[in-house]
């Protein structure tokens, strides 16, 4: 933080030098701006942010810190907790990766082609946002269960989708899809047709144009979509509990384990799982954000 603020002072100092030559700049909390209302809006932002996000998170930290490191470690490394965390993060990761591929494809089709029913498909994409996730979970279970229409198709081959981690992945793909489509779609719409024409005149075939020119340009948007879909999938509860089967160590997700601990009145155990999830999620999102910041700085994207 210190290094950050000194650099600020320096830059401001420079600018001042140009303007008035004499006056020494001193560090100020806020850069001068013509837009009024900084105090009011900043205060509101801090209060709002604290009430909604910061205080609950701090409470979480304090609660789990009360255990001391050893106690925390004992709870966190409980095999059932580790299993649940592994299931949660691995299925969320797989689902987000699947969404990266097919969400981008879906966005591509919606942006690039005009076909009957395009607007309807476009509207339906948002349904997972609006639908109660429990409803989605029940519907998916009904379809993918061994006696459901799609599950029955796989059952003769001994493949079970519902009540396994595969079922969890299906549910998580469902809830994450709109995040992917909705972040890639607007960026894809912005891509100038001329870019593709330029690539073609330079001799690039269609495949080279897509992989070397278009997709790299979409990378920041795809990363954002991935981060959103992944974050949503890690925290998903409603749709998963119906389709997962919830077998400890196999298909039991961390959010469910938290609920189970709460029902056992084991508040400390629940808090520890939550704190671990929070740390892992924060670390992952932070890394994704760093990658994004890097790519945006490089290409000068205003996303």
């Amino acid at each position, binding site marked *: 933080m210190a290094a950050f603020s000194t650099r600020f002072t320096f830059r401001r100092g420079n600018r001042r030098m140009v303007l008035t030559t004499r006056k020494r700049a001193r560090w100020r909390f806020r850069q001068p701006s013509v837009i009024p209302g900084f105090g009011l809006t900043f205060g509101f932002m801090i209060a709002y942010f604290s009430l909604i996000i910061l205080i609950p998170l701090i409470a979480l930290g304090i609660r789990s810190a009360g255990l001391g490191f050893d106690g925390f470690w004992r709870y966190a490394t409980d095999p059932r907790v580790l299993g649940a965390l592994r299931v949660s993060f691995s299925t969320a990761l797989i689902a987000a990766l699947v969404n990266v591929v097919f969400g981008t494809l879906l966005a591509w089709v919606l942006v690039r082609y005009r076909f009957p029913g395009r607007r309807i498909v476009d509207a339906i994409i948002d349904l997972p946002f609006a639908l109660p996730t429990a409803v989605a979970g029940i519907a998916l279970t009904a379809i993918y269960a061994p006696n459901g229409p799609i599950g029955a198709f796989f059952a003769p081959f001994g493949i079970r989708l519902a009540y396994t981690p595969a079922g969890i992945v299906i549910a998580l793909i469902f809830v994450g899809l709109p995040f992917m489509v909705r972040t890639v779609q607007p960026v894809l719409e912005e891509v100038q047709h001329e870019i593709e024409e330029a690539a073609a*005149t330079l001799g690039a075939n269609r495949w080279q144009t897509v992989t070397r020119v278009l997709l790299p340009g979409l990378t920041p948007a795809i990363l954002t979509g991935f981060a959103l879909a992944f974050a949503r999938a890690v925290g998903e509860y409603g749709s998963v509990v119906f389709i997962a089967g919830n077998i400890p160590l196999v298909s039991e997700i961390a959010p469910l384990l938290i609920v189970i601990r709460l029902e056992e009145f084991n508040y400390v155990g629940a808090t520890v799982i939550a704190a671990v999830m929070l740390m892992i999620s924060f670390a992952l999102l932070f890394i994704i954000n760093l990658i994004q910041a890097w790519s945006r700085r490089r290409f*000068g994207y205003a996303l």
Partner: protein
Amino acid sequence: MEVRVANVRKEFDRFPALHDISLDIRSGELIALLGPSGSGKTTLLRLIAGLEAPTEGAIYFGEEDASYKSVQERNVGFVFQHYALFRHMTILENISFGLKVRPSATRPPKGEIRRRALELLDLVQLSGLEKRYPNQLSGGQRQRVALARALAIEPRVLLLDEPFGALDAQVRRELRKWLREIHDNTNHTTVFVTHDQEEALELADRLVVMSQGMIEQVGSPDDVYDKPNSPFVFGFIGESSYLPVEVENKELWVGGRAIGLPAPDETTGAALLYFRPHDVELVEDGAALAGVVAASRRVGGTRRVELEIGGGKERVEIDLPFDHPAGEKSRIAFRPKRWRLFPVKG
């Protein structure tokens, strides 16, 4: 590489954009397609590039019919008005892109690609910027990168679509001169589209003036400026004034008075007289065009005067020396030194 456009017609959704265009482009020349927006000049350029397919007619590269070849096969360099650079690639990667995407059989080795790209960067005077990204360059620099990128593939024809349209006047003039130099050094057959007549007159070996999907006139800048073959070309290239006149007894008449311009070869009847505002002489006595000054403003080194002729029915503009004492409502008599007559049809 000679390019021949033979009887090309192009329709977009049954709306005709080009009517039966034929044009021979000579090898190594710098030719400008000039016209107002909607005249079809960009469409013609895109047809040559292969970015559009003709509805009818053919396009020949040398002796070879290129009409049904894809863009990739035609090997043309195309420069877009808004640069169309790949913004996730460095300048060097942008320039070498065309060589890198070649099939391995014809792709030069890596070191060679790099050497050639750096050489082109030097040609467009941007050495040292190879590691930058397009968004770190100014508009003029970006357009130079775009040109280097197009030249990298050793195109058979270089096509430029309003290459300086998005740049400010100063940069535009600089780049114009610079493009001429590059063309003289590399001798690529170059076709460029512009709606800026000054640019076309200054830069091109030959002009193709287009209007409403048809070619109005093809010729050297001097030809087109001095001998426009239609009222449209006269009006579009350079400044012009026009006046309805009558041809009678091998002389021009306005409002029943002879204006002292003999017309021995013109057919009798109504016609339009076209002349350049700066190409007039003031006359003290004798038959001339006379008018009352309606407005007068200083334009650089001259004074542009608007005259009402024949009691205010018609207005023409002429240029006078800036220190001419012409005030509002004063009478001025003049005769165009050079002029053209276009008969009014039916």
